[in-house]
């Protein structure tokens, strides 16, 4: 059973161009702030100072990119112990990473590579998630990644794969709505069907971000505002999963803080509207 973070709220990812503002003025326009875990592991100096300042103001979500939970090499226990130490220090509201793999033979690709959706992968990942949660002493959320290629060996729909891993490992899911949209387009799937079939009791957080249309595929580049169809999909997700914590991610061409605050405010407003009007009325709108 998923234990959801208390408080909920809407915020954005903390990025380097905004460190100075946060250090001087603290957090504005966010109910929670998400940070990339690897940027704060064993760090002192400015990263540590800004994280402590942010944590004083709002709850923090730790979002990793290098756990590589789906890799077939040994689980990186050193990384997990360092993450545990960071968790003990800042007491994050949420700890998450990606349902993917990104390393091979002890070497890191620093990318989020998809897994085949099959029983072998479900069993493999679920066992590793359980081991990771044992080290961390808490549940984690795993995010669905954007994908550009599928495996010939995949036999399950992606949502079923996500749900089965979460059920067996007793972890949560971080539903990245933009990733759902990008993946659906890239594999000629229905994004709405995807949202409607992810197990509702496992989703603990949303992500929103921008993508780039490259003609033959959509690229999840986190370099622009959330696109209108992704906002509509988000409303559908809120209707189905509730007003969960939601983070706007923006990594390339990071805009002025005001624009990020505006995106988080839009997420807050849209979620409130969905919750006020009731789930059923938004179902057919996406």
């Amino acid at each position, binding site marked *: 059973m998923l234990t959801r973070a208390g408080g909920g709220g809407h915020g954005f990812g903390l990025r380097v161009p905004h460190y100075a503002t946060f250090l001087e003025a603290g957090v504005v326009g966010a109910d929670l702030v998400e940070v990339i875990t690897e940027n704060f592991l064993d760090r002192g100096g400015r990263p*540590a100072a800004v994280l402590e300042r942010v944590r004083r103001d709002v709850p923090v979500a730790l979002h990793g990119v290098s756990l590589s939970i789906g890799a077939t090499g040994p689980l990186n226990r050193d990384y997990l112990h360092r993450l545990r130490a960071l968790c003990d220090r800042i007491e994050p509201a949420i700890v998450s990473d990606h349902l993917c793999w990104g390393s091979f033979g002890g070497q890191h*690709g620093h990318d989020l590579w998809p897994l085949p959706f099959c029983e072998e992968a479900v069993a493999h990942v679920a066992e590793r998630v359980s081991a990771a949660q044992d080290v961390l002493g808490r549940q984690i959320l795993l995010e669905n990644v954007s994908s550009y*290629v599928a*495996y010939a060996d995949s036999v399950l729909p992606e949502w079923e794969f996500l749900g089965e891993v979460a059920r067996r490992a007793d972890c949560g899911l971080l539903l990245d709505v933009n990733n759902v949209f990008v993946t659906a387009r890239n594999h000629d799937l229905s994004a709405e069907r995807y949202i409607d079939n992810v197990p509702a009791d496992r989703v603990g957080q949303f992500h929103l971000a921008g993508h780039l249309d490259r003609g033959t595929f959509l690229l999840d580049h986190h370099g622009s505002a959330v696109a209108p169809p992704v906002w509509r999909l988000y409303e559908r997700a809120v209707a189905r999963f509730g007003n969960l914590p939601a983070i706007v991610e923006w990594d390339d061409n990071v805009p002025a803080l005001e624009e990020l605050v505006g995106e988080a405010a839009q997420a807050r407003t849209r979620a409130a509207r969905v919750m006020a009007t009731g789930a059923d009325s938004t179902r057919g709108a996406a």
Partner: protein
Amino acid sequence: MTLPDLQRVFWQAMRADIPPGAAAPEFAGDKSLPAVERLWIYRRMYWARQIEALRDCFPLLLSRLEGERFEALARAYVVAHPSEDPCIERLGRRLPEFMRDHPDAAVAQLADMAAIEWALVEVLLMEDPQQVARGLDVPQEVFPTCRIEWVAGLRLLSLADDPFEATGAQVGWAVWRRKFSGHHRRLAPDERRAIDLVNAGTDVAGVCTAFADAPDPAARAFAVLGQWLNNEWVARITVPDSAVAA
């Protein structure tokens, strides 16, 4: 194909050990975007991300080598030394060493500059020191018998030459973090000798012999020690047990 085999094939296609076409039968695509093209998306992103990480860590090197030569160096380096750390900033750990043996003399000549840039990355990634000495908080009479301990974040490099202003001679270089920013500077020959003595565990009186050739050795020694303290290089100045007992 088993999961480990699939991941090996995918990894090889990313690293350019095999062409994506050789891995394509294990993957699915469609008419508008065949599997091989889809694998190329990942492969381009893999290399772009590695090269970007090195660009971020070595801006001076990038400016000296300019675009294409830097990219060629970065690719060759990543082929030889794939990332071994979950934090991508640590990818460049062995680049200075890799450059020293590079067949292109112009690249090899820049190895010392890369060493300074990498040391800057390292000091910025370090945890805060647990202790920093702010002043000479020891009794004057025992000071000559004290020993100096550096903070862990101080990097002392020995370079083949000054990478910014060639002298034709070996130089010592210090790289450190003070509060939030990284700094580096060349060490004067007497200061370098003094640092070597500190590293050898010599007491303050012994360290001061490094300044014997200065016009005013005592003034020079205090000036250098003051600079070390001001730059937050010194973790502590320890009084020997014998002096405490006395």
